[in-house]
């Protein structure tokens, strides 16, 4: 079976960002100062645990970012050299993993793990019309006598899942013990030190986090082979599938939109701070003007304009997902163009301080040109601000996406996103009886993602900006024991 890789705009940018991240990781390994600071981040148990959760989500987003289109089977009687036609649907690797969830579409609502539909339908039985709950076409379809078998089957699958989750978690514990056995004098001692939290990095917290993820994921994987773990929505789509697909949208918005602010914020901030005078005045005027418009309104105005433009140039896109992708891409750019004021202000302030310091003065005295001073001496020294703002902005943007999508200026409705799920959940919650599972699934995924991002961001901020206000509570040693 042949296929054609599809490179959506956001895929390329995500991939580029991954490469930049790897390059940065290499720098961290090489540079002793940076390594020490990052070690500080990871020595914080909360931040380390949050990083693991974030990595899991990032993995899902990455797998979902490899897109391709399958070739259609050649038409009968087509010439051998005829061009291969491709399916109009763009799939990702995640769709392959979740092929069953994608294929098993029911006719309507069904509860999590259900084997029958959510609402009764009339059927004719023995010449009489009765209203019964219909069996689902796929969920629990392997059960011959569901009423008797269902509970046992679900329990058995959940138990298998839990067991395999435990095995994976234990393997991870073992692997980390093996990795640190040198410095701790043998595997057994290493295990004891992990359990007693006496390791250099807080491995216990990290492994506990990983263990919880395994214990949650195990049963889900085991159950999703035959059931809809989080039920199905109005049109019978698997809610679990939607939640996983939404993770990528959240990541795209969270990362791309902050990255889009960086060129403006860094360039303008450094220029304003370094040159002062009229350059500073103009740049200050620019960002005051931008920030004087309420953000949602500004974004809404821009998105509306883009929408009208796209509607009138619909011939530009080959597939629906390309169109949706361009829309989310432009949304990120808009978020970037409208959102650089805060970071720019910070960088300007920092540059004003830096330019008076001796090393900058010395460089100027040696006749180094301004552009070079800025790129060599000032930009590297404001990077911690950039990093902190990027990490802090990530979770805010994920929350913002939900609001924007609700307002109607967010991502394309055809694209799975948390905002879209909440929007649907809102109408489902008012049905009778309540359809709660979409809501709960969106809530669980979103809170896990945003909470992890927030906790990680706090760790990064504490490590990189020791002068900043600390938001973390510290117990006195006595209170902890």
């Amino acid at each position, binding site marked *: 079976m042949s296929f054609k890789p599809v490179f959506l705009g956001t895929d390329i940018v995500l991939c580029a960002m991954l490469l930049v991240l790897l390059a940065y990781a290499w720098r961290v390994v090489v540079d002793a100062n940076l390594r020490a600071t990052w070690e500080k981040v990871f020595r914080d148990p909360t931040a380390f645990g949050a990083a693991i959760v974030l990595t899991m989500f990032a993995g899902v987003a990455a797998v979902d970012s490899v897109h391709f289109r399958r070739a259609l089977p050649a038409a009968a009687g087509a010439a051998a050299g005829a061009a291969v036609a491709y399916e109009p649907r763009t799939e990702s690797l995640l769709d392959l993993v979740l092929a069953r969830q994608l294929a098993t579409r029911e006719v309507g609502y069904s509860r999590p793990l259900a084997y029958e539909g959510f609402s009764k339908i009339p059927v004719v039985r023995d010449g009489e019309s009765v209203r019964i709950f219909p069996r689902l076409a796929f969920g629990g379809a392997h059960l011959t006598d569901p009423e008797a078998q269902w509970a046992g089957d679900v329990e058995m699958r959940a138990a298998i899942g839990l067991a395999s989750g435990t095995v994976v978690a234990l393997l991870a514990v073992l692997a980390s013990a093996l990795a640190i056995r040198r410095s701790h004098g043998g595997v057994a001692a290493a295990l004891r030190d992990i359990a007693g939290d006496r390791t250099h990095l807080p491995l216990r917290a990290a492994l506990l986090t990983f263990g919880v993820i395994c214990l949650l994921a195990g049963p889900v994987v085991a159950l999703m082979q035959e059931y809809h773990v989080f039920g199905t929505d109005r049109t019978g789509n698997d809610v679990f599938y939607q939640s996983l697909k939404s993770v990528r949208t959240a990541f795209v918005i969270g990362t791309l939109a902050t990255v889009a602010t960086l060129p403006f914020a860094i360039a303008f901030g450094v220029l304003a701070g370094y040159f002062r005078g009229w350059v500073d005045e103009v740049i200050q005027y620019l960002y005051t003007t931008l920030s004087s418009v309420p953000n949602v309104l500004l974004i809404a105005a821009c998105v509306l304009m883009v929408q*009208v433009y796209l509607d009138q140039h619909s011939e530009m896109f080959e597939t629906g997902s390309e169109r949706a992708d361009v829309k989310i891409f432009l949304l990120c750019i808009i978020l970037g163009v409208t959102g650089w004021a805060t970071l720019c202000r910070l960088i300007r302030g920092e540059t004003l301080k830096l330019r008076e310091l001796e090393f900058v003065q010395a460089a100027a005295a040696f006749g180094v040109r301004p552009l070079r001073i800025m790129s060599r001496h000032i930009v590297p020294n404001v990077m911690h601000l950039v990093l902190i703002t990027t990490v802090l902005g990530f979770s805010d943007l994920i929350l913002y996406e939900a609001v924007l999508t609700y307002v*109607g200026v967010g991502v394309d409705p055809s694209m799975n996103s948390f905002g879209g799920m909440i929007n649907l959940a809102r109408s489902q919650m008012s049905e009778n009886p309540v359809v709660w599972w979409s809501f709960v699934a969106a809530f669980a995924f979103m809170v896990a993602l945003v909470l992890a991002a927030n906790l990680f961001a*706090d760790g990064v901020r504490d490590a990189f900006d020791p002068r900043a206000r600390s938001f973390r509570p510290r117990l006195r040693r006595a209170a902890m024991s």
Partner: protein
Amino acid sequence: MLNYLVRRVAYGALILIGVNLFTFFLFFNVNTPDDMARLNIGGKRVTQAQIDKWKAERGYDRPLYWNEKKSGVAKATDTVLWQRSISLFALDFGRSDSGRSVDIGHEIKTRMWVSLQLAVPVFILQVIASTSFALLLVFFRHSRIDFWGVVLCVLMLSISSLFYIIVGQFFFSRMLHLVPISGYVGGLDAIKFLLMPIGLSLLARLGSEARLYRAMFLEEIGKDYVRTARAKGLPEAVVLFRHVLKNALIPIITSAGAYLPYVFLGSLVFESFFGIPGLGAFVIEAITGQDFAIVRSMVFLGAVLYIASYIVIDLAYTWADPRVRLA
């Protein structure tokens, strides 16, 4: 002081010109008036005559920036840019683009009061609630109450405000039937409808605000005057509530003031979820109906309010801290 005010207002006017130019470019250059006309008239076959009529009705039939046909000053003044800008600066918002063609100024005047009914209590109660929660945490700092309080804050700020609204509507209206699920009436009965949105929007922002305030209070507590106060033998409560609270007012004003523009514009999401016919709901209706005249007016109004509220904040600084002199 007067000197300062005049300068601030002049700079504000300069910014408004910038905002106006920017929105004009966005709304008239990215999509030409012809596109707008086609969109608003709707339908597949739109004749040029219809478009011209639509444009003439709204005064969009002039050139955008420069009228070559006219002579003298009219070259600049007889353009869409000039006409729209002048009317905006006079706060005459004109009529909306959509079919119903409502009078925007009139709508804003009537809806503003509804918005204020929701937003003013939220604004005031927010400062009170966040300050008291933060002070509570600071009072019990380095203890379990503080620790779990901050954990609660982080959890609360990780939850989208949409979740608060949906859960709140579900429990208080559907399960307990305490308050109506949404809607609005004028007069005193409005309290019934406003109670839940006010409560929920307090809750939705409590996490982030209280955490920020807590950090600000802790910063103040490390200062010398606090040590002096303690050395005098003042009880901790007096130190906190009399000395620290007063000195932390400046950062509180800054952070609370950032929400001031939204007080007038209303909370977009809360108003539309609860069916409260304020300015926020007006904007959302305009966005979903693709009514650009309304969006443009609201962007301008938002900028005006932003500038006004920043002047108010500066004045509040002088009140909170006599050392601050506006010059």
